[in-house]
């Protein structure tokens, strides 16, 4: 049944292309469908990078508005999902870069932060909560490297720091996580 799977994927790609083209022409309903396709994926990224539900929702809204504004710049050179992912990461990083002197602190841990993502997987929820309580810089590097799969070089470029700083922040994040989950 492999050919069928390929044809379904092709169909999805084609319909996404059409949605993008329609949205580029100004169709809000097509953009809503794009939103629904990528909402959860981008929210997971926003939530993990911000470690805060309200901030993640704010990021999600801002990121989709940015995508809408930049939509005509998308010419299909890269995959759409990669393109919007890059916009989201850049936006969140720029937020924390502006707020670099105001490290986001988690005085009270919202234990329900990942409740929608986990049913009975307590370790998964604990892990997510532990990530959320990491200091901003360490958390951003950890999420980008370990969850989003970016290289230290890419993280350094996006965060406007060095590869060494990225590695140091990752080490710090791992150490803190191990302590918190012990």
């Amino acid at each position, binding site marked *: 049944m492999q050919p069928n799977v390929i044809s379904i994927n092709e169909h999805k790609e084609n319909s996404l292309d059409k949605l993008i083209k329609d949205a580029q022409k100004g169709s809000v309903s097509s953009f809503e469908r794009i939103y629904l396709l990528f909402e*959860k*994926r981008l929210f997971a990224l926003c939530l993990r990078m911000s470690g805060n539900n309200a901030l993640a929702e704010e990021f*999600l809204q801002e990121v989709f508005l940015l995508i809408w504004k930049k939509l005509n710049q998308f010419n299909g050179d890269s995959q759409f999902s990669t393109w919007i992912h890059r916009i989201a990461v850049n936006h969140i990083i720029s937020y924390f870069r502006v707020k670099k002197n105001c490290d986001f602190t988690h005085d009270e841990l919202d234990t329900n932060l990942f409740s929608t993502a986990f049913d009975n997987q307590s370790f998964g929820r604990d892990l997510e909560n532990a990530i959320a309580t990491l200091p901003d810089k360490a958390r951003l590097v950890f999420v980008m490297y370990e*969850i989003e799969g970016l290289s230290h070089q890419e993280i350094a470029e996006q965060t406007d720091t060095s590869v060494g700083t990225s590695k140091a922040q990752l080490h710090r994040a791992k150490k803190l996580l191990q302590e918190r989950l012990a």
Partner: protein
Amino acid sequence: MSDQQNSDWTEMKQKLEQLPKSIAPKNSVWPSIEKQIINEQVLAKMQSQSMWLKWSMAASWMIVFGALAFSFGSFKELKQTQEQHAQLLSQSFQMIQQEQELNIVRTQFLSSLAQSQHAIDAKEYSSIINQLAYLKMDRQQLIAQIKSDPNQTELMAQFVQAIADEQTLINSTANKIPKI
């Protein structure tokens, strides 16, 4: 990291890979996004309309100023033509008057000359008549040239000179004719 830490980390990495790739937000942010998009579209439309309005107003002003400039140009041209016409009219009036005055003098002279013909040498009489005929012919040719090209100031000057020459000839000849 120690071996124990590495082992713990490998275990944690496996758990990380199991973390969900997608998480639904508690509240949908779409209504807010849609509202902002629609607001921006309305604003962009208004800005575009306002820009068109500005352009059309600028174009209207340009048309008005263009028409005014054209009208002013036409007015100046018309005024100039009117002035030229007035000048030409005065010129032709002056010519007619001068010619009329000369014709009166000329007719009187010819009449006197005819009466004194017997007292004048035939050759001299013929010469006077021929000279007057030539001068008249020159004058009429000049009038014809002035009519065809009224703006030629030189022709007008020549005409004035021709009248004066004719007048001088008549006066000088009249003095030579014995009084009857």
